[in-house]
């Protein structure tokens, strides 16, 4: 994924309006792009070409259904560890070796390694987290979500 800002001239005003509008979601109909075009004063073809380009230049990472992963039957847990500086790379190798580790971030805190376990069940979460504790000798704090809030997040383009 692109991690650097696009140059200011990479997007025109229509691209920006489209990015903003697309974050709110499209309707589930036979011709959603034509409907979006009508709403924004663009042709269906223009909508499709622009989305394709926005994906191509990395302005959008994805365009499609956002799903509630838990509804698919998986189990997820945010975990944190306090890893001594001189053991960081060793511990990192041990943790990342587990396929169940989906994301892992180094953060500025006493608890300096934060990762998400994505497993098929709650018992798998316990098994993998316990295993990481045995392999590293470091406690794995577990923060499963109790409640997720509706997200109003929008990136203004």
């Amino acid at each position, binding site marked *: 994924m*692109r991690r*650097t*800002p*696009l140059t200011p001239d990479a997007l025109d005003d229509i691209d920006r309006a489209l*990015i903003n509008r*697309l*974050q*709110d*979601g*499209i309707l*589930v*109909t*036979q*011709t959603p*792009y034509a409907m979006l075009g009508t709403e924004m004063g663009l042709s*269906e073809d223009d909508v*499709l070409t622009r989305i394709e380009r926005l994906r191509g230049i990395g*302005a*959008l*990472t*994805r*365009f*499609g*259904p*956002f*799903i*509630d*992963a838990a*509804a*698919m039957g998986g189990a997820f847990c945010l975990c944190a560890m306090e890893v001594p500086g001189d053991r960081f790379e060793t511990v990192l190798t041990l943790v*990342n070796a587990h396929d169940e580790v989906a*994301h*892992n*971030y*180094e*953060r*500025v*805190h*006493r*608890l300096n390694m*934060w*990762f*998400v376990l994505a497993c*098929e069940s709650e018992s798998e979460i316990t098994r993998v987290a316990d295993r990481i504790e045995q392999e590293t000798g470091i406690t794995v*704090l*577990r*923060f*499963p*979500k*109790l*409640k*997720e*809030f*509706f*997200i*109003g*997040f*929008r*990136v203004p*383009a």
Partner: protein
Amino acid sequence: MSIDATDRKILTATQGGLPLAPRPFAVVGSWIGLDEAEVIARVSAMQEQGIIRRIAAAPNHYALGMIANGMSVWDVADEIAETLGAQVGALDFVSHCYLRPRALPEWPYNLFAMIHGTNRDEVESHRAEIEKILGPACRTRDILYSTRILKKTGVRLRKEAS
């Protein structure tokens, strides 16, 4: 909330994205042997149930200049945490917002909100805005900035239920 094998096929088929074609649901149907009307009916039903949250674009916030982010964490009184959490989640600069169990004594925080901005100062001013919303219900707080992405494979759906 549950889905059957056909729903799962639809979700798996669209994981990489909705086809960019005039009749995208017809294209999805052609991949998995369903007609367009059934795909539309099933996608609509999944959206009503909250399994599909929306069909939308995920902007690349780095590409759009939002390169700073921090995981803000808050110790919020339990009796009001759900109400306040909903208000924090609705803010347009918060990308993830969850209540999680505390891990006492080392971790007193129960509300997690990921804040994004164009720079560190903007993240801090957003954080001050959250602090104002939480008011006296919040006892202690912190923010954790990331220094390195150590792994990011994302969550991929399995093709079959197990």
